[in-house]
């Protein structure tokens, strides 16, 4: 089947609050799609609607061209991690995976295999109530992988994992996408997705804000400026201005230069035998680009938003 998730006009209201508002997007195979938005933006609700758990007030979602409800063995097509706490505390991890496997006719050997994959084999016989948050997270990931599905939906998979686990899951998610699966990862922290996601679906207050590749987002956010450090700053500034750049001082010995490429700046400095101690292109992080985009859509901001890092207006 096509590894695809298609959402079309999904809308969900709880009382007077519209949690998801006419949301439409496509998640494709072979890449990691990040589903990003501030807390309360509607990410979990959207995922639940795709899985047929919550009924949308309007619109619908298809997985591989079919509705989730119509799938005979859904775990073999879609693996989802929604809530790591959704385990019976008195039940052993092994049995939790076993009943899931049985419900979809998945061979018993897969239980041991996924436990091995997430590193829970030593505690397979332990009761889920005794697990730490990280262990329960791993158990949830194991459950999502049980049916070897082509589509994976993970809601905050990095939550609760230690640094080693975070690195592992980033690499793991990328390898799953490289195998041709569609991987849909929800997160409220852009920094988690940096280096992992290829494509982003950004929502705020239930509405789509951006549906873009990571490269495009970074490209549009960054302004191509350079940071230059030289002992003869005052001398260099008019030189750069004359060459057509916009220059401003930055701290005690830095210059911020826009409008010229790094090679041109270096050549200008070399022609006048001006030493350059630093020549760095200013890279916007994914987080900065994202914050800029969602500034107006944050429901639960603590105090005023932080100033932009470079001190420059967008």
């Amino acid at each position, binding site marked *: 089947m096509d590894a695809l998730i298609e959402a079309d006009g999904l809308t969900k209201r709880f009382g007077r609050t519209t949690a998801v508002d006419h949301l439409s997007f496509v998640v494709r195979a072979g890449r990691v799609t990040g589903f990003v938005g501030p807390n309360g933006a509607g990410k979990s609700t959207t995922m*639940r609607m795709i*899985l*047929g*758990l*919550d*009924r949308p007030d309007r619109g619908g979602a298809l997985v591989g061209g079919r509705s*989730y*409800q119509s*799938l*005979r063995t*859904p*775990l073999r097509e*879609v693996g*989802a991690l*929604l*809530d790591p*706490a*959704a*385990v*019976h*505390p*008195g*039940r*052993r991890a092994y*049995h*939790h995976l*076993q*009943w*899931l496997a*049985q*419900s*979809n*006719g998945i061979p018993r050997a897969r239980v041991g295999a996924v436990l091995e994959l997430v590193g829970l084999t030593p505690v397979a016989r332990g009761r889920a109530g005794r697990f730490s948050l990280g262990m329960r997270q791993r158990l949830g990931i194991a*459950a999502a992988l049980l049916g070897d599905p082509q589509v994976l939906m993970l809601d905050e998979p990095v939550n609760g994992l230690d640094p080693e686990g975070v690195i592992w899951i980033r690499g793991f998610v990328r390898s799953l996408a490289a195998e041709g699966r569609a991987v849909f990862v929800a997160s409220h922290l852009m920094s988690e997705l940096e280096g992992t996601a290829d494509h982003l679906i950004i929502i705020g207050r239930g509405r789509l804000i951006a549906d873009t590749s990571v490269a495009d987002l970074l490209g549009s956010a960054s302004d191509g400026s350079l940071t230059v450090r030289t002992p003869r700053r005052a001398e260099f500034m008019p030189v750069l201005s004359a060459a057509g750049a916009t220059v401003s001082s930055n701290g005690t010995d830095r210059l911020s230069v826009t409008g010229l490429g790094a090679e041109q700046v270096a050549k200008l400095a070399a022609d006048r035998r001006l030493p350059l101690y630093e020549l760095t292109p200013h890279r916007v992080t994914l987080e900065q680009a994202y914050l800029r985009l969602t500034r107006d859509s944050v429901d639960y901001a603590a105090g005023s938003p932080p100033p932009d890092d470079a001190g420059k207006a967008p």
Partner: protein
Amino acid sequence: MTGEFGRVVRAEWTKFWSVRGTRWSLLIAVAVTIAGTLLLASESNTDVTQAGQGDDDVVAISLRGLYFGQLVVITLGVLVGTSEYATGLIRTTFSAVPGRSLVLATKAVVLGAAVAVAGLVASFASFLVAQPLLQSNGYVAPAYPRPSLVTEPVLRAIIGSGLFLTLLALLGLGLGIILRRTGGAITALVAVTFIPLFVAEPGTPLLSENVAMWVRRTAPIAGLAIQQTRDRADAAIGPWAGLGVLCGYVVAALALAGWLLSRRDA
């Protein structure tokens, strides 16, 4: 379709038995029923009868422990319905098996089978254990010939008692899914089951005779009529009719539960 049903039944079976509390509940239900019967049988004697000499229902007396066992079975049934809501596991279940009526049906099958077996064990054991006690208490021929296990009324009473416990557990399951709250569902079902015993028990009814009779006919506890093996003046309803009343409640509860499951968000 049977393939899918079989799969989901197996999954629900694993879920049911992989929680320690289930085993204990069934054991306690059986133990309480047998212990209750023993206690009551050892105290019963032919000097004191509810409605006159020589017409005690020996078989029913041997199954009286069910009055106590039903409390445990109600709790178990409710828990099967509500525990997944408490932990949020219900969402995982519905992502694995989107067919919600199928999930309800398989839960009912698994719960019903387990309680039926436990109930039959409890009923048979109660009956067998009570006989010597009752004999030594004066329930002997010619007024009270020894009841034989292989006769129709006796078998009906015993098997029917097992069925009674099963139906009560299923009623708990339905109510648990409808209310989604453990405390509320157990309380409601225990109240509905036991209140008739306060107000409508023959001999000391708080209600008038007519109303009491009506209550004993229409309350879920009418199901205990299945234990009757003698015609007595204070019998409110026939054995199968009584069990049928309880059946009606179960069907209504499970139907409502199924309808709500399909309508509600997970």
